[in-house]
């Protein structure tokens, strides 16, 4: 994000689009509440009446899958009502005319039916946003987990550029990442086309720099970008990927369309899973590499605001586990490249030397729980809390902010009479990601446990003869799962919501891909489903319990029957 998380408290206006802080990041939600207490205007765009919507000045309850139509209407309003910052646009941006070409058909009045938002509300929202002294747009997976995610992000950035809300205190764009340290993974080059520090693998000079540091021949380095995670199962089925080494991911739980992921993983010659607990993915592995957990080692996380933070070991690791980097070093050594590090700091210092934007972030500077935001190019540099303060947007040669938007495309799988409800996958506060960690926490299990929940508006549930807390079938074209109906007056009629972490009520058995063409992120926010009531609830309870116990027994037996490594490394 271009701003700092703590700076969000100081903004005069928070424009929250497809981001549910209270469930995804309570610590960020606290900033939103504080900003509100300090008098910030809050505008929320979301199909559900999320916690932030309760305290908002304005809540635009848009239809699922209409993001781009709504944002184009916002852009239309800014231009038509001349609410935009003409001086800023002229000096620091490009593409204004092209913008109008796209949005001219998106008058708020014209998109009322598509978005479900009254035109007056759309216009009022833009008057508030453009009129604020400073404003931050916050967005989350409600924007990016659509087939049109990348384009939608660009159009949100256009709102900030049009109103000059970039490069100063309390003003900017704030995409809040899906998981803890996702930013760190990107920073470290866990992307198919980048080295650490956002340096392209296609650049020969960059390859040479890394090859020199690692003592290898630059010609040995692969100049082609790799493949993205969501494409691996498909490439495996085509026979193009033979082996898959997964570290700390559970695609059988977290990726869209589980049955297609399952077929992909089954088609592999070799699956290696490095993780801290057993998962449905680890169950399929040929080799399991047990690693230390977050409390058993130290390291550096990056927060979604580009801030590096050191963290420290809380307990000594037990049993036969190793540090992630130790495992990588041992495997590299076995494969003929002797790799050895003594400690975290050696790795960090190597990273600093190779990545100009991190160079100034020394261990000493990070100190105990300090927070230093990249870019930080020199040892004297204090870090960069706010990006673009010079209003130069260096992603393009001209240095001008690119005003971009696109025609709205409907989601790939629309509802039909057979599958009349939209399923959107969401988060819940008590459980994190695939739940391999929080599912082992007794207190969090007490708050929410298998077979999970499907949130549904009471009116929709009554039409289907479904009682609150009853077990139901949720069915899509790809599968069906059993889960518990959870009446919720805050969700919109016509859509149901499930969290992706449950083994029994596994919503990704139902979701579909329709990936964004740039990021290959699947469209997990939208597919068509139907709900079916179950007459014999006693049978349903024991059936759900049986599925859960069987799966636990299977995972246990995989561990018990696993052969320990023949060679002691």
């Amino acid at each position, binding site marked *: 994000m271009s701003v700092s998380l703590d700076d969000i408290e100081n903004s005069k206006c928070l424009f929250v689009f497809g981001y549910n802080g209270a469930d995804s990041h309570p610590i960020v*939600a606290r900033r939103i509440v504080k900003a509100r207490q300090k008098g910030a205007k809050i505008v929320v765009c979301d199909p559900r009446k999320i916690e932030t919507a309760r305290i908002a000045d304005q809540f635009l309850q848009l239809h699922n899958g209409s993001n781009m139509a709504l944002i184009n209407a916002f852009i239309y309003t800014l231009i038509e009502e001349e609410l935009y910052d003409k001086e800023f646009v002229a000096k620091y941006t490009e593409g204004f005319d092209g913008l109008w070409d796209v949005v001219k058909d998106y008058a708020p009045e014209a998109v009322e039916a598509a978005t479900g938002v009254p035109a007056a509300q759309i216009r009022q929202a833009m008057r508030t946003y453009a009129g604020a002294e400073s404003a931050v747009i916050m967005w989350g997976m409600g924007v990016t987990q659509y087939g049109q995610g990348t384009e939608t992000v660009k159009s949100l950035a256009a709102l900030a550029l049009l109103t000059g809300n970039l490069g100063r205190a309390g003003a900017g764009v704030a995409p809040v990442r899906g998981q803890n340290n996702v930013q760190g993974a990107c920073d470290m080059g866990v992307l198919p086309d980048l080295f650490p520090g956002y340096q392209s693998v296609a650049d020969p000079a960059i390859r040479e720099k890394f090859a020199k540091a690692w003592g290898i021949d630059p010609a040995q380095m692969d100049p082609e970008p790799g493949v993205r995670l969501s494409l691996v199962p498909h490439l495996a089925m085509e026979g193009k990927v033979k082996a898959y080494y997964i570290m700390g991911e559970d695609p059988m739980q977290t990726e869209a369309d589980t049955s297609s992921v399952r077929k992909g993983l089954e088609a592999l010659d070799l699956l290696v899973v490095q993780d801290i607990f057993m998962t449905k993915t680890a169950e399929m592995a040929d080799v399991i590499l047990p690693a230390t957990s977050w409390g058993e080692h130290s390291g550096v996380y990056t927060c979604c605001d580009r801030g590096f933070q050191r963290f420290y070991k809380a307990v000594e690791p037990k049993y036969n586990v190793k540090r992630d980097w130790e495992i990588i070093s041992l495997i590299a050594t076995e494969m003929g490249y002797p790799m050895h590090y003594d400690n975290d700091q050696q790795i960090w210092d190597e990273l600093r030397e190779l990545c100009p934007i991190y160079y100034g972030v020394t261990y000493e500077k990070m100190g105990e729980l300090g927070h230093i935001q990249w870019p930080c190019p020199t040892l004297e540099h204090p870090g960069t809390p706010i990006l673009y303060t010079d209003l130069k947007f260096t992603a393009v040669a001209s240095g001008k902010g690119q005003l971009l938007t696109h025609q709205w495309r409907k989601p790939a799988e629309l509802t039909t009479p057979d599958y009349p409800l939209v399923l959107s996958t969401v988060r819940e506060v008590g459980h994190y990601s695939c739940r391999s960690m929080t599912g082992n926490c*007794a207190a969090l299990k007490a708050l929410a446990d298998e077979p999970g929940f499907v949130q549904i508006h009471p009116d929709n549930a009554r039409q289907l003869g479904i009682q609150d807390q009853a077990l139901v079938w949720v069915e899509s074209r790809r599968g069906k799962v059993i889960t518990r109906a959870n009446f919720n007056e805050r969700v919109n009629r016509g859509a149901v919501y499930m969290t992706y972490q449950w083994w029994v009520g596994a919503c990704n058995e139902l979701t579909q891909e329709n990936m964004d063409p740039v990021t290959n992120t699947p469209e997990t926010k939208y597919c068509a489903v139907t709900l079916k009531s179950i007459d014999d609830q006693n049978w349903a309870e024991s059936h759900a319990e049986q599925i859960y116990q069987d799966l636990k027994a299977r995972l246990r037996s995989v561990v018990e029957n696993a052969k320990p490594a023949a060679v002691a490394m």
Partner: protein
Amino acid sequence: MNRFILADANKCIGCRTCEVACAVAHRPDGDVTGVSAVNFNPRIHVVKGGDISTATACRQCEDAPCANVCPNNAIRREHGFVHVLQDRCIGCKTCVVACPYGAMEVVTHPVVRNTGAAVNVLVEKAQANKCDLCYTRPQGPACIEVCPTEALRCIDRNELEAMSAEKRRRAALDAGAQLYS
């Protein structure tokens, strides 16, 4: 006057951290890993409606209906709150019925009881569960300590008086000014 826990619905984000902190604080071993779905008995409850998220707990009434109806004199006002003497509680649930806030719950937990004939048997002991302001905890109420948005407060006589004074001021100055205009 008794103090009591009050949640500000404008700050509550419905995260239920207070519930977990409460359940853990009232375990004799204070061990979070000992909590399970069976013994998870928080004395503060998050309530979510269409427009409200907030937490509810005992108001520590000055003339407490729960204490008035208890047939075994297990509930009394002491230590600055309405205190349940658990060894006197018989689990009759009259207090649950009497409480207008739904703040009282009767829960059971297994205990070993000696029958007197050198035989130890496992029996269910009832307990009337309500907020005790964590009176044995030196740091004060656990829920207040953990709330990420500082939505929970312990209201005492002074704070209640300040709240009322502010409301009187607003009523008089805002509404009063218009009365004769």
